């Protein structure tokens, strides 16, 4: 079963951390990646750019309308994710707890099952 583990960043919380803690979180991701690669559960991970650099596109009457900024204004924003393949939901929760951000007051990891998945390649042609 595939799960998306999303990291929700709160700049207020992050800026309040000591440099030491920030370093520990950052390097902790390297250790975490090594662990879930070794366990065969890693599919991929991506960290996203700043919300200030995002834009929202809406097509109205066939015409795209672009507004700068994130879709929803809130204290937290989506900072990145891990896509993992886990045996059970329980294991996905266990894996999420290994992400360093999960241990920071005011931050948490959201765990959601993947309902549909497609890659660059389609289903193999029959025969």
């Amino acid at each position, binding site marked *: 079963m595939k799960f998306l583990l999303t990291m929700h960043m709160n700049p207020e919380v992050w800026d309040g951390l000591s440099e030491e803690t920030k370093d520990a979180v950052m390097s902790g991701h390297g250790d975490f990646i090594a662990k879930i690669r070794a366990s*065969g559960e890693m599919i991929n991970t991506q960290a996203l750019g700043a919300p200030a650099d995002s834009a929202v596109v809406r097509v109205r009457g066939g015409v795209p309308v672009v507004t700068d900024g994130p879709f929803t204004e809130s204290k937290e924003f989506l900072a990145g994710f891990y896509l993992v393949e886990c045996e059970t939901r329980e294991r996905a929760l266990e894996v999420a707890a290994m992400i360093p951000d999960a241990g920071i007051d005011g931050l948490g990891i959201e765990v959601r099952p993947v309902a*549909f*998945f497609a890659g660059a390649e389609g289903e193999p042609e*029959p025969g």
Partner: protein
Amino acid sequence: MDAELLRPLVPQVLGVLARRYGQFEACEDAVQEALLAAVEQWADGDVPDNPRAWLLTVATRRLTDLWRSESARRRREENVAAQEVTQAVPGPGDDRAPEHDDTLTLLFLCCHPSVTPSSQVALTLRAVGGLTTAEIATAFLVPEATMTRRITRAKESIAAAGSTFAEPSAEDWPARLQVVLHVLYLIFNEGYTASSGEELHRVELTAEAIRLTRAVHALLPGDGEVAGLLALMLLTDARRPARTHEGALLPLADQDRRLWTVPQIVEGVELVSRTLGRGPVGPYQVQAAIAALHDRAASTETTDWPQIVELYDVLAELAPSPVVTLNRAIAVAMVHGPAAALALLSTVEDDSRLKQGHRLDAVRAHLLELAGDTDAAHAHYLRAAKRTSSLPERRYLQSRAERFLPAHR
């Protein structure tokens, strides 16, 4: 070279190597590499006269290459170098079919209890099924590197558990065979109802599960549960051609039964009648017997529902699970009406095993529909549609829900 011809050779070659050199882990890698080389080199029809001996030779060479490159294993290298095959000619006995079939021993090893179910499945498909890692990764929609790691880790767990290339003790045998059958069943189910993705079926997985179960049945013809599992797969897979229409799932009642695969039904029914009632009855035999009753009926109306309810009673005794209760409720509705079936559902509605999935809502919606409570049926079909991760299933459930929209009445 047809993969159908190549793949049965994989467990044979792996069996010979594992017997000769021990070290299942390295032997399995070597056979996979030989398989990849064969797929590449035989593609243009340039198939060697003796494919089995060719695979054995290439795998042996890969094995010696591997050992050579590990300088710390110098001593073993010297031993093996003496036996090294220098050209692609059969060694003594290599051109003969093996005296004993190693398929079962390999299955026991791949389905080792120290390994998680999804890794048991992956390793079985590779080491016994002869699929490449890339094919298995595609079937399960994960990157090849992820699948490679999972298989390597599975083999490391087996080695760490101290397991060797040997059948389990007489004492462990029945429990270990249960695990093997469960893994084959998981492979079949993953193919029959793909747990995620656009396609409902992954035919290559169902076909592979049937092929492997057939092989186990040939080795253990007297085992009722092996026969039962094979029958269950054949009887279920027989309905596949009628199971979808334009990408949406069709329930049994709406399927065009003329599309069902008759030879599979005949074989499945024969297996059931040959084994049921001789020796201890197990859950696979009972499920096969239920499937046989469905497959032999010309319509839902002429199906022997009272007999199906009885069989579900037996199944609930043998292997109680909330899913059995759900299926039993559907049969009970046909015999005693939807009210009795809904009462049965209330016994499992708090079961944590049903909380995550969509099945409880789907069955409840169906029963409410039978009871004529269309508003509640609509709501439960929608809830079920939201909770399934299979797109064809979602399309079906949504279309059911839409039938009970106020505008349609």
